[in-house]
């Protein structure tokens, strides 16, 4: 009796959140599974049950396979680069000097910059004619590159934008991890005669390795879900070179009006994201036990 009353009371506090989750997370998830198994009308209605045919079509469609390939390539360009750029910044930000707060703010500043703003700034810097990047290249007698129109360069250019925009997040997480490395640990290694590099490689890196991994997984999740920079910079082109999964879903659903097929694509994305989220939680646990 008492526990039933407690449940009712608790539900009164939970009902608002539960209602939103039911309407905009759980129901649409089920609905998306359903859509993916149907042939759909251009208006998004169900027309005929076709089982797994949408999926079968996806995995034989060169377009979809290309978007998977592009997404993987995009991850290869951005994830390691994000860590390689973020770690030195975090190390510098971890110094104990006067005014360090200003540096920390500066290094993690891109957190305040939306992907749309970042994309527009980079579109300007990447402009083939008056952009600053091609100018800098010309100083070293480099060629004039059509960054966003050349199929070889479009994805790296979008990746550079992404790396810059997510740099702030990486710095914040890696800095937090570095601050968690006990001073005694580093001191002890120094006293044992370890040089700067040796201490860094054999003491600091292992101590923050869960954080490095965490940043890598979060960046991968970001890549799987990236859209804005592609929509602004390249619209998936040239010739599909930047057609990442989410952009492809967007095109199929809202331009080709193939909701069923797009829903099937979304399910594939879901499985990928789920795999990486599980990985992230697993690392989470390990990280916490380190502290």
């Amino acid at each position: 009796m008492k526990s039933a009353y407690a449940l009712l009371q608790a539900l009164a506090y939970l009902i608002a959140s539960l209602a939103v989750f039911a309407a905009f997370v759980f129901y649409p998830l089920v609905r998306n599974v359903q859509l993916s198994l149907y042939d759909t009308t251009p208006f998004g209605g169900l027309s005929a049950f076709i089982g797994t045919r949408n999926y079968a079509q996806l995995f034989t469609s060169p377009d979809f396979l290309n978007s998977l390939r592009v997404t993987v390539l995009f991850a290869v360009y951005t994830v390691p680069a994000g860590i390689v750029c973020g770690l030195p910044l975090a190390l510098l930000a971890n110094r104990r000097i006067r005014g360090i707060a200003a540096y920390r703010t500066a290094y993690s500043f891109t957190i305040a910059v939306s992907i749309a703003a970042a994309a527009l700034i980079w579109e300007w810097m990447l402009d083939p004619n008056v952009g600053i990047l091609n100018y800098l290249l010309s100083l070293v007698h480099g060629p004039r590159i059509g960054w966003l129109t050349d199929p070889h360069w479009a994805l790296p250019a979008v990746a550079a934008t992404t790396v810059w925009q997510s740099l702030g997040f990486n710095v914040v997480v890696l800095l937090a991890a570095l601050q968690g490395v006990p001073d005694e640990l580093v001191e002890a290694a120094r006293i044992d005669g370890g040089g700067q590099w040796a201490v860094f490689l054999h003491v600091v890196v292992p101590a923050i390795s869960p954080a490095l991994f965490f940043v890598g997984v979060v960046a991968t999740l970001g890549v799987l879900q990236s859209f804005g920079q592609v929509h602004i910079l390249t619209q998936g082109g040239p010739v599909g070179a930047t057609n990442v999964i989410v952009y492809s879903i967007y095109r199929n659903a809202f331009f080709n009006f193939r909701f069923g097929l797009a829903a099937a694509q979304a399910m594939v994305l879901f499985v990928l994201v789920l795999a990486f989220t599980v990985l992230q939680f697993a690392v989470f646990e390990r990280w916490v036990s380190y502290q």
Partner: protein
Amino acid sequence: MTSESATPAYASARARGLGSSRRRARALRRALRRVGLDALMIVVALIVLFPLLFALSTSLKTGAEVDRYPPTLWPHVLNFGNYPAAMQQAPLPRFLLNSFVQAGAITLGQLVTASLAAFAFAFVEFPGRQWLFFLFLSTLMIPGEVTLIPNYLTVRSLGWLDTYPGLIAPYLATAFGTFLLRQFFLTIPRELQDAARIDGASRRRFLWMIVLPLSRPALATLAIYAFLSSWNQYLWPLLVINSTGMRTVQIGLALLQSQEIISWSVVMAGVVLIVLPTVVLFILGYRHVVRGLTAGAVKG
């Protein structure tokens, strides 16, 4: 201190001199290293901030200077005209208003729903608590892109396309925020709850008078995090909004970019305007932003 003579009488003094000169050299090296690192930090900061500073500088250039090749780093003539021009080419004040309404409502809504839910999870003992908490956390594993198409269809069938409710409603609950607040609530001593009960305070009063005031730092963290992420949303507003007047700043900027002749100085003025609110929030609330981003991660 360093002695040129090498006579035995001065040998020990020389040794001492050498020792101290070595110490001096080491101190000098360390000082040089420090100065070098200081300089490096400034250079690195300039590189990281370069795109933003360059956008700011571009927004102050005249149209002629922007098209000049080679590009100039600083505007030779300060020109503030791009800002009014940007507002003329696109109704930026209206977009800013839309974004403030959208991000403000989502922030407020998340504060309310997350405090209520976190309170239940932290202070009410009820059957199925663990199960429900797990259900909350499970929403973190479902990316928005998967629910995108059905949510679009739902919002359309509700007649909410091109409206504030369409922009706001799907984001009114947050598992992350609930988790964040619950963790904080759990640090509030149980004795306070018992004392409140003895004083005859209801649960609601306890939440309102004691828990929430004590949790101001956690609430601020959630608020700043929620505002930043909803202000910066791109895909959902793009789908839900189709009239010009209802656009948020993020998708409204495209209007500047899609002009027949792109004037980069005008586009950059627009960029500066839409980045400004989050930049101010970021600088003022830096601690909270950091705490939000590393919340579960570092503190467990």
